[in-house]
């Protein structure tokens, strides 16, 4: 797990505290019961805060898994490099 994944995992752990560290990388809105629309919005807010970025969210549903959010962050990091 690289630094970015670790920080994102910490965000997930704060918003979805019932997930174990092993479950977090596979977490998605469909696999985690407590992951509802409020959790998505909270996750986005926490990620924005942690990575000091502003996420343009036309459709929050696209941020519905750990891997998708990680990809989004990696893309953003590439653009700024």
């Amino acid at each position: 797990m690289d630094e970015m994944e670790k920080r994102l995992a910490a965000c997930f752990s704060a918003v979805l505290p019932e997930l174990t560290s092993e479950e977090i990388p596979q977490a998605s809105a469909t696999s985690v019961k407590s992951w509802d629309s409020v959790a998505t919005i909270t996750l986005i807010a926490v990620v924005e805060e942690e990575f000091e970025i502003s996420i343009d969210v036309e459709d929050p549903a696209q941020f519905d898994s750990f891997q998708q959010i990680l990809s989004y962050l990696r893309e953003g990091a590439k653009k700024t490099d």
Partner: protein
Amino acid sequence: MKLTEALEILKGIKSRKGEVFTCFLATGTNPLHLNTFLAAELSLLFAHLRIEIQQGLFGDFAGNLRRLASNEAHCGIVLMEWTDLDPRLGIRTMAAWSPSVYSDILSTVRARALEVQQAIEKACQRMPVVLSMPTLPLPPISFVPGWQASTFEIELKAALHSFASQVSQYAQVRILNPQRIDMVSPLQERFDVESELLTGFPYKLPHASALANLLACLTRRPAPKKGLITDLDDTLWRGILGEVGVDGISWDLDHYSQMHAFYQRLLGALSSEGVLIAVASKNELSLVEQALLRKDLAISANSIFPMEASWGPKSEAVARILKTWNVGADSVVFVDDSPLELAEVKASHPDVECIKFPTKDSLGVYHLAIRLRDLFGKSAILQEDTIRAESIRRSHAGLAAPERAKTTHANFLEQVEAEMSFNFSKSPLDPRALELVNKTNQFNLNGKRYTEAAWHNYLLDPESFLLVVSYTDKYGPLGKIAVAAGRREGMKLKIDAWVLSCRAFSRRIEYRSLEELFAKFGVEEIELDYLATERNSPLREFLAEILGGAPAPGCGISRQAFHARAKTLQEPKEMING
């Protein structure tokens, strides 16, 4: 606080046991992250309670106010933004803007403000209510350019100020200070337009965090500090008295030392509000007395008692002051410009709050004044506040003389013409009673603290009683200094709370209170919900005397035993101290 931190706090206290503190949040916005911040802040403030935040429906501010008015929560929070007062003042509506709608918006805002006032008036009969006036900027609705204040906007704000002015007079209402939120959260960094459109949550996270922090602070009345001990040289005034003499010290614009006058004025104000002010200085006492006679001093020398000027360690001076005041170290602030002196006092009195006076840093002194206001701030000034310092000064003078003369308790009380009055009225609710129960440590039956709502509900029970004792003697009144509360159960009286201010020790008020309770209720036994705490040894010693042995939880005393023991204990004995 960051949102992640708030979530972590809530995660950490999930398993917290104990009583629930319920807070009803009445707002028309979607409180979303504000809820999280608020729950976290309240969890930190009420460390032994489980926090539950109830809320109404998104967009239904009027309905949520009605829900608040009939709610049984321990505390209510009314959080309103302009859009709650008229949706046309927000961005989620399609309604037209034009100068022709200004007067209608103004009428709507006034009518809605009246509804809010009525709901708050009803709710605050049962619980404390916290009110936050709009914190978000008005949208650009007015035709004038943004740098010009329009008549319309000024009238809108005037309507709200008038409403707030009326609501602020209700005893259980606290209004968030707009100046404080302006200081901690810049106006242009509050409104999250995207989030408002997407979810109805209008705040940027730092603003939501700042707002939640202040709202949480307002949900409880923290016990204010009682006394301030100040250094003199380069603190109360600029200069070293022993080096430059009485005329060489300064606190004025000419000597660039005006902020010392500002500090003196603040101490003078605190003194007039009931805060005890003392001096601990390494100086010659005679020189200090001369300096304090200077007519241009911005604080009256009479406001300062006691005056500890010597060359000994300041920790010892502080110890003597604490003894004279008879207050706990945790209710005292020590201000000095020397980090060394602060450290020396802190080492001996870890509970004293030690604050550095930032000499030659004017902005620092200004910020110090704000901090001191927060530490000593109270919602109302009671009669007891205005007489506290004088009664300590008189007690000190009055009690010292009999000590030398080895006077007995009984003689002494006769000599000082002690008078006690016992008031059993529960209505109107006396705020001093709860204040005493919540801040007294030494003579306290069990150390239990009550929220305003819990205390209010306790006294609403027709079986409960409340006794408030006032005391006066020839040295002046001490005001209301003791409280007992409990319930009658058959021929037994159960006391749940019993406190006596430390200012009123050695006056046999505790004996007279028990005597009065036996007489008033005609019971044969008084049962005490006693619990030993770290600091209630004076109460413990009294109970040991009256019971003839160490007290235990739930201990009781019969009428017969009490009268027998009280009589014996009234026999002459040497008075130890005041």
